[in-house]
């Protein structure tokens, strides 16, 4: 069974997926952070492909993108850094990034590289569904790569069903109408949105992302879905850490507590 499907088969709730930017805080941290995250208890790992113009991201991830690029991060280098991935990490790994670097790398070559190193899925926020269907879907499928779609509080029921029909792993529920970054807590708008999605009885499981920063928001998100994704809050920990391994352990523990 595909690694992502296996995860959701084995675990139905409180799945924790953690995002970080490749090449941040230091150029060669990419693989180590994945190893330490798995050791700390993360269920899934999302590695960000740095981009110069990350327009769906808030200040924290914009900054980690910039630092990574200044460090010399490239997509070629990323695949090289994670070529030993599958001898060291067993949880599903997803790459998340904007479409332009992928286009320049070459779609076919990109899919092949993903398959070679053992990447399981992709989140490309600025790849529209119509383009995905006409240009990308077959290539992704050929290489065993799952495409993960986003939905938001503004997404209509009809479109959510369309996303569900096109998905075969999980659906990324963006918690609020916003760029990435921490919120203090979720309010009634989120509760009714989470409930609306739950009542659609979708075929795919859901993970909530954007605005999850601590135990409380993680718990709120998990109450309505199969788990949650943390990005900006983790990037902040990485950015100020003197000991990545122990701080990562500490952070994951604090979320799951």
């Amino acid at each position: 069974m595909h690694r992502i499907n296996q995860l959701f088969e084995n675990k139905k709730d409180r799945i924790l997926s953690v995002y970080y930017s490749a090449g941040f805080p230091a150029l060669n941290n990419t693989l180590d952070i994945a190893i330490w995250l798995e050791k700390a208890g993360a269920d899934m790992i999302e590695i960000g492909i740095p981009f110069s113009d990350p327009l769906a991201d808030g200040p924290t991830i914009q900054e980690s993108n910039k630092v990574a690029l200044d460090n010399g991060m490239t997509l070629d280098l990323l695949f090289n850094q994670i070529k030993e991935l599958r001898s060291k990490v067993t949880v599903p790994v997803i790459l998340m990034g904007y479409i332009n670097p992928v286009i320049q790398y070459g779609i076919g070559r990109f899919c092949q590289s993903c398959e070679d190193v053992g990447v399981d899925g992709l989140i490309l926020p600025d790849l529209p569904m119509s383009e995905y269907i006409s240009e990308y879907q077959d290539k992704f499928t050929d290489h065993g790569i799952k495409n993960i779609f986003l939905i938001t509080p503004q997404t209509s029921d009809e479109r959510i069903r369309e996303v569900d029909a096109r998905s075969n792993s999980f659906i990324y529920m963006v918690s609020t109408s916003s760029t990435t970054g921490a919120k203090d807590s979720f309010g009634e708008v989120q509760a009714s949105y989470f409930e609306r999605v739950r009542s659609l009885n979708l075929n795919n499981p859901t993970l909530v992302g954007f605005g999850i920063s601590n135990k409380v928001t993680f718990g709120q998100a998990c109450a309505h879905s199969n788990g949650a994704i943390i990005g900006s809050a983790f990037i902040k920990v990485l950015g100020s850490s003197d000991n990545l391994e122990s701080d990562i352990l500490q952070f994951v523990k604090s979320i799951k507590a």
Partner: protein
Amino acid sequence: MKYTVDKTGYYGNFGGAYIPEMLYPNIEELRESYLSIIDSKEFEQQFNALLKDYVGRPTPLFKAERLSDKYGAHIYLKREDLCHTGAHKVNNTIGQIILAKKLGKQKIIAETGAGQHGVATATVCALMGMECVVYMGKVDMERQKPNVERMRILGATVQPATSGSQTLKDATNEAMRHWINNPTDTHYIIGSVVGPHPYPDMVARFQAVISEEIKFQLLEQTGSELPNYVLACVGGGSNAAGAFYHYLDKEEVHLVAVEAAGLGVASGESAATTALGKPGVLHGSKTLLMQTQDGQVVEPYSISAGLDYPGIGPMHAHLFDVGRVKFLNATDEEAMKAGIELSRLEGIIPAIETAHAFAALKQLNLGQNDVVVINLSGRGDKDLDTYIRWGKY
């Protein structure tokens, strides 16, 4: 029309709507409604009335005799610099704010480079009583101070964009992020023929009034509505789109777009997208884009803030691709000299963006019977500091 957008939002290989899901409902709402709104009688009446009585259209088409003598051709200037607010930008903001009202939006955001689009947006927001936030690169705020203050006098909030090169590209990123965070009550007035479909088409349609007027004015003055050449500068490409629009299918008219070469195309300090770019995706559309081999967007450079953009609109990318429009470029130095030349010969100080179009006159092999229309897209008041710093006049 052969060169305009197709049903799927593409111009040949370029265009589309590469947007995150967060913006999907907004873009979908626009896509579904823009044509029926724009084509309605009510819209047309309101748009035309404001263009006439508020903007001051039609703008004159002026035969520049001394310039014509100098270059040995019949050169006509389309005086967009005489529009209210001093540039063609207001044609689009008038159209989009009426559209925003029809869509029930209460707030307006915009990005701006030179500040002309920001001023034009702040102006129509004041006119319509709508809240206005304009994103502007911090670097651009410094080099276009008078326009920053104009926007503030008009009641707009000017938000500095402090990421990246702190210019137009980054202001556009920030405006899009603002829209993601405020999707329901806000309309984003994009200032150029860039962005996800339907923006490039919508902005081109609002600017098309420029070539619509050139046609009847030229017919009146020369007996033919067809010139031999139409010249315009290109950053994102809105004034060029407007000046070319009604001539696109008239293949006998040579359309010439002039990009900013900065310190020179090969200098590494340039904004000449067609010379340096490859197909890529930025700000919601697939277009020609200045980028590294790894797909990171390159920081462009030009002396003129309005041309300092690493891409061009997807329609222009297509027109370049199929060879319908000839793309030339002019350096900072050439543009500044052309700006001074126009000032001395015709008593018109052009915006530095616009001066790039005039700099290309030297590169054309004009015959003495050739009729040339140059889109004089903006006036140079906002650029006095740059002219003064340059000093050679």
